[in-house]
């Protein structure tokens, strides 16, 4: 275990607290505040993984998950970015993409085979001759991708989502972001500040260089963070990566929870009136031979390892850098005990004089106009070759760390995904955003500012611009902020160099996909001459790092190789999510959003076995016998009770209520009389049947109607849609949840009802298809209909939901002597199927029209002038003989029923089974099917093909319907 600094002001670790974890089966200890990656580094791990294609050793390179180098499997979850994941006690950590170990990978030999795998290798080979592909594919599949996930893996943790509101959203909690947030907050606005790291401060946080007036950057970061935290109208989300930005300033991200939080991760979606993007920069990788050998790392990475996590990256570090942060890191690491044989600075001039003096004071060799050209060492850096940029002079040094960084790359993701354009800027060597989206502003280092005061001034200005968008800032204030900004140093000059003077066979432009400079050249030579094409052909930037490493090097190198003028340089497109996001995080918490009926608990108490049906939970069975035989027989022989509360129930009233009903129902409803029940159906504009139900006239301009369970949610929308031009005067109320329904069915139904009601319910007084209102126990108001869905004497009782429990218990008590029993949805399904009463969605599918399903008798052809929905199409379809028809069938030779959904075939598919059951009432298997018209004649033989039937067909015959009680006497008795 390495020694760790424990007195640096910038540290985020607490060395007094040890955290145990398992790596490759052995126990190790990290320190409180460690990420998984730093804990491993502290334990001497240098090779974290092997690369995708060539199995090259990979190590700590950047710090914020810009590449797959340090992705590992943690607690069974693959591809975890260990650089941004807190170490937690008991974590089980494994290496990925290795045969053996990352240290000794048996697949390592592949690295020498790169000559056999040029860019586009898979596209060019293995498909000729065609029969090679299935064989090759298996091998490629095995080698492709990183990380393994068991198909039955269950994601541990709690995933949540929040939709906070604010006026101004600031993305990035560095100096610019914090200043912007403070500026907007001081104007009285509600601000949300999102920061990807677990703390505020950005690049200031880990730097001990002077900010201004002898205050260090770190001290300034702490000062700003304190100010932000004590400002009530700034809500800070740390450890929150921004993943998307869209029109109307919709901002998305996710937050990683700490031990104190109730969530593992949570998705955040918010809409701001104005947005400030202050995401700063990442470092631009330097391109040279073996530029990703473990031990090679970026300047910020080396500095943060020491200053944030108390780890000296190595004993001897050579630097090849192109910016002042590199010099600053060299000075700081030297002072912490690192031997620095040489700094190669790509720049010939322009260095910060203070830093130059610091370097000289420490007697570190600094060569300007020099660059690293090759890292040596099979598994880790042992030695480095450096050259002057013209390639004439050369030096070699032994080292265990090579700090390599060409420059900076601005993180413009949130701007770009929200349609900002990027334009190459020769001064900064950045792709800078132009044409910013409305009410979105950029600030800070991503615009090229290096000076701390400039960064904050640009943050302040952006914060005020956002306030201006919210109409909380005057033009005068804006002008002042602009002036202040202009008095500070402008954007710094960026280094032009993209790569060292080398051939590039082992110079990697993309680590995730093992794309070398040579591969890029091959792609260009094959005619894929723009970055978007090179990216796809060579894979550069397609890996999990989301182009964090090759993002800007690819277009810059491409331009250089093709000697393009600056104006032509175009980076590749960035798409959300900007940071890899777990599907679990997007999914959030899995709420059970199902409705329960008013007598749900009574159904459960009676042994109901529930199923999710649409938006409801319903009692489908009342015994483990899923044929529901006892329930069915009891309805046929005695009396049963069903909870039908899920039916859609509506009231429509007003002068135009009838007009509205006439518009959507195919029947002529002007003729219904009070006290009668009218069964009818709705079609869509294609004539396809979408709903059936009953309509009752309660009084003048006042109707009550029911819809099927599945349509209840859309009925108001449907009726209002189809009457939206009419300006009709009617009110429509959805009573589905306000009313419950009990279906009392069976030959004894009347005997039960008689006992509890205050009116005459004899067949003469209350006949089939009639409607009555009465009271039960002098209190419960009931709307009762005599229907026959299950084919027996039957009452459908509609009561206010609050009375459902009482009515149910009263009926149950009264029915005891008549052997009343619950029946479930499955029993009802069989009972009505025996009667050939359809359930829409079961006997129909999307293309089934009213005529196909045998409900044509509901359509009133005489009704005109109402522009009834579906009629135009039905008129047309009536002449069409090619449509499927609903038929009844029974099985041959006492055979079993085919499964629902089984196909009806001859030499092709001719139809399908809608519902079929072994009927106890009939003692044979029967069902309904949709078949092509020519097969609908009674007597036609049907062959049924079921899933996994191995070609064994079963047979049935089309018969007359209904199967049960064809004369319909039982429901009318």
């Amino acid at each position: 275990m390495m020694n760790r600094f424990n007195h640096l002001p910038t540290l985020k670790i607490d060395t007094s607290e040890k955290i145990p974890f398992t790596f490759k089966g052995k126990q190790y200890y990290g320190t409180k505040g460690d990420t998984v990656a730093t804990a491993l580094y502290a334990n001497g791990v240098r090779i974290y993984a092997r690369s995708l294609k060539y199995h090259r050793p990979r190590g700590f390179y950047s710090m914020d998950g810009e590449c797959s180098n340090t992705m590992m499997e943690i607690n069974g979850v693959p591809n975890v970015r260990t650089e941004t994941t807190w170490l937690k006690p008991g974590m089980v950590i494994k290496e990925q993409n290795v045969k053996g170990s990352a240290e000794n990978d048996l697949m390592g030999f592949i690295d020498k085979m790169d000559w056999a795998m040029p860019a586009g290798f898979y596209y060019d080979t293995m498909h000729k001759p065609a029969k090679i592909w299935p064989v090759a594919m298996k091998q490629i599949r095995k080698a492709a991708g990183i990380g393994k996930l068991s198909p039955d893996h269950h994601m541990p943790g709690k995933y949540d989502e929040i939709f906070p509101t604010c006026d101004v959203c600031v993305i990035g909690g560095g100096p610019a972001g914090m200043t912007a947030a403070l500026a907007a907050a001081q104007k009285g606005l509600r601000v949300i500040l999102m920061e990807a790291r677990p703390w505020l401060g950005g690049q200031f946080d880990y730097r001990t260089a002077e900010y201004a007036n002898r205050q260090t950057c770190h001290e300034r970061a702490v000062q700003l963070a304190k100010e932000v935290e004590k400002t009530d109208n700034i809500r800070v989300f740390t450890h929150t990566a921004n993943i998307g930005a869209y029109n109307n300033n919709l901002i998305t991200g996710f937050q990683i929870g700490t031990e104190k939080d109730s969530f593992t991760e949570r998705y955040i979606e918010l809409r701001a009136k104005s947005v400030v993007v202050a995401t700063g920069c990442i470092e631009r990788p330097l391109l040279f031979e073996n530029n990703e050998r473990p031990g090679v790392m970026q300047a910020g990475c080396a500095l943060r390892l020491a200053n944030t996590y108390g780890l000296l990256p190595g004993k001897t570090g050579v630097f090849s850098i192109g910016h002042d942060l590199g010099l600053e890191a060299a000075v700081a690491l030297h002072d912490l005990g690192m031997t620095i044989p040489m700094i190669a600075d790509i720049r010939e001039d322009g260095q910060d004089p203070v830093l130059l003096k610091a370097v000289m004071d420490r007697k570190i060799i600094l060569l300007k106009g020099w660059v690293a050209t090759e890292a040596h060492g099979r598994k880790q850096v042992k030695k480095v070759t450096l050259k002057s940029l013209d390639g004439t002079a050369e030096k070699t040094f032994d080292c265990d760390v090579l700090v390599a960084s060409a420059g900076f790359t601005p993180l413009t993701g949130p701007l770009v995904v929200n349609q900002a354009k990027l334009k190459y800027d020769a001064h900064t060597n950045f792709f800078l955003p132009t044409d910013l989206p409305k009410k979105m502003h950029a600030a800070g280092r991503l615009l090229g500012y290096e000076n701390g005061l400039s960064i904050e001034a640009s943050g302040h200005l952006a914060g005020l611009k956002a306030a201006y968008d919210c109409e909380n800032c005057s033009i005068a204030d804006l002008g002042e902020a602009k002036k202040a900004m202009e008095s500070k140093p402008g954007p710094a000059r960026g280094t032009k160099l993209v790569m060292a003077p080398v051939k590039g066979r082992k110079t990697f432009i993309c680590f995730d996909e093992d794309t070398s400079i040579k591969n890029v050249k091959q792609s260009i030579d094959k005619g894929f001459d723009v970055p978007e094409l090179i990216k796809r052909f060579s894979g550069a930037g397609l890996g999990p790092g989301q182009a964090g490493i090759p993002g800007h090097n690819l277009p810059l190198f491409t331009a250089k190789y093709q000697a393009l003028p600056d104006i032509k340089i175009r980076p590749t497109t960035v798409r959300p999510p900007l940071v890899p996001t777990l599907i679990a995080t997007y999914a959030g918490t899995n709420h059970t959003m199902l409705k329960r009926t008013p007598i749900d608990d009574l159904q459960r108490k009676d042994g109901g076995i529930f199923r999710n049906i649409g938006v409801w939970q319903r009692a489908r069975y009342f015994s483990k016998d899923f044929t529901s035989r006892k329930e069915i027989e009891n309805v046929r022989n005695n009396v049963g009770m069903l909870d039908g509360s899920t039916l859609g129930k509506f009231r429509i009233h007003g002068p135009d209520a009838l007009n509205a009903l006439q518009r959507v129902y195919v029947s002529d409803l002007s003729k219904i009389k009070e006290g009668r029940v009218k069964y009818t159906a709705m079609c869509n504009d294609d004539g396809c049947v979408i709903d059936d139900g009953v309509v009752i006239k309660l009084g003048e301009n006042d109707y009550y109607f029911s819809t099927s369970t599945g349509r209840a949610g859309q009925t108001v929308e449907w009726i209002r849609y189809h009457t939206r031009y009419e300006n009709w005067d009617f009110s429509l109320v959805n009573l589905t949840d306000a009313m419950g329904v009990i279906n009392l069915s069976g030959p004894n139904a009347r005997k039960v009802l008689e006992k509890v009601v205050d009116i005459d319910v004899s067949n003469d007084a209350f006949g089939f298809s009639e409607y009555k209102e009465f009271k039960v126990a002098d209190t419960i108001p009931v709307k009762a209909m005599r229907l026959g869905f299950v084919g027996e004497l039957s009452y459908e009782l509609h009561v206010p939901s609050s009375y459902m429990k009482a009515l149910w218990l009263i009926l149950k008590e009264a029915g005891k002597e008549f052997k009343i029993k619950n029946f479930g949805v499955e029993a009802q399904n069989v009972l009505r199927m025996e009667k050939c009463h359809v359930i829409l969605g079961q006997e129909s599918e999307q293309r089934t029209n009213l005529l196909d399903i045998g409900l044509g008798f509901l359509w009133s052809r005489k009704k005109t002038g109402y522009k009834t929905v579906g009629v135009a199409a039905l008129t047309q379809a009536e002449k069409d003989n090619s449509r499927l028809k609903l038929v009844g069938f029974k099985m041959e030779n006492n055979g079993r029923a085919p499964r629902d959904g089984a196909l009806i075939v001859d030499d092709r598919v001719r139809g399908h089974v809608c519902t079929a059951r072994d009927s106890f009432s009939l003692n044979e298997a029967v069902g309904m099917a949709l078949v092509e018209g020519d097969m609908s004649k009674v007597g036609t033989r049907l062959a049924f093909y079921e899933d996994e039937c191995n070609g064994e067909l079963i047979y049935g015959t089309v018969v007359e319907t209904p199967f049960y009680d064809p004369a319909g006497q039982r429901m009318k008795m």
Partner: protein
Amino acid sequence: MALTITCPICGKRNGYEFRYGGEEKGPRPDEKDLTPESWCDYVHMNKCVAGVQQEWWFHRDGCGSWFTIFRDTTTNLEKETPEAKE
């Protein structure tokens, strides 16, 4: 959803709350003289403009009204008038 929609009753709300109801095509044609073709055109043919179009929305998770808005289909932003140009 990035889209926001201004309901005439509830004001500007998140697009999630609404259901799309198609392009504005005018009232249902008269039954008289209606041919299957003209009917089919009314129901199924859309202009699919790349630009500002008038279209129907239903405030499903709100007041339950149908209304039209103008939306620029190229930016997915609501516009105040059919001519609105950036």
